[in-house]
């Protein structure tokens, strides 16, 4: 059996006939390979953080609006949702400038998760309701703490191809 041609899953090959070798991407290969898993995980967090913060902002529990019970924690959840959404889009995007946007988003995420976690231990009275980033992402299996480090490593090892730099 020759190994010259890469094998492929029959279903996947039938559904998508685009071959992996596509046109060069100005934004680098950050949405390729493992990067696709990263985008998927960021996407799940963007979705859940958005749903959670919309519910906490506008929702009503047993006749009482939720927001006044923990405004600081909830506003920080809104911030987390915004950062995850920007990071997901920027990581998935093929544009050159998206790399910089993704880097800023991931750095804000890193600072945010550490700062909010420390604050949640230092001033627990501000967090009667947990936030996505409080207590080092405990409620989410500590994934929020690990994610920005993985994201940062991935971005730094997958910079966009830049003709000026590569000269």
């Amino acid at each position: 059996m020759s190994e010259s041609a890469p094998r492929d899953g029959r279903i996947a090959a039938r559904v998508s006939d685009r071959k992996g070798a596509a046109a060069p991407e100005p934004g680098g290969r950050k949405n390729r390979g493992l990067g696709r898993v990263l985008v998927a995980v960021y996407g799940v967090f963007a979705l859940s953080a958005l749903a959670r913060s919309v519910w906490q902002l506008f929702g009503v529990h047993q006749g009482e609006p939720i927001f006044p019970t923990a405004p600081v924690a909830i506003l920080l959840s809104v911030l987390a949702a915004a950062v995850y959404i920007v990071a997901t889009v920027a990581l998935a995007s093929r544009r050159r400038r998206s790399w910089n946007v993704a880097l800023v988003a991931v750095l804000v995420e890193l600072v945010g998760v550490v700062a909010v976690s420390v604050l949640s231990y230092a001033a627990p009275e501000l967090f009667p309701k947990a936030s996505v980033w409080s207590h080092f992402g405990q409620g989410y299996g500590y994934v929020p703490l690990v994610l920005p480090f993985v994201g940062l490593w991935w971005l730094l090892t997958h910079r966009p191809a830049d003709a000026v730099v590569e000269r």
Partner: protein
Amino acid sequence: MIWDGFMIAGAIVCAACVLIGVVSAALRSYPTDPAVISLGAVEVFLLVHGVASGIRQAGPQPLVGAGWEFWGYLATALLLVLLAGWWAIGERSRWSNLVMAAAGFTVFVMLYRMQQVWIGQGWF
């Protein structure tokens, strides 16, 4: 968590999806047929769950929590599986399998939350 039929079936289907996805990623450098089929099984399970829940609403243990929340989760999960499948197969590589595994795990977490909404307890 209550291990009723939905939870047991859901856990098995999602666990199979995660396991097959991870093993496929370890052994193969392309999205394998079992991984795609197991993700499809998650979608089929969600559809059956939806129909059965519509019928269950009239039964002995109706929905206690917010209806829009339960059905919102179900609709989101259905969409998420399709989106994950599209994103996974968009570039056919070893990592496609892990994207599908991640979707299986996410759906399991959503099922757990849906059950909390159904029986009316847990955080909000």
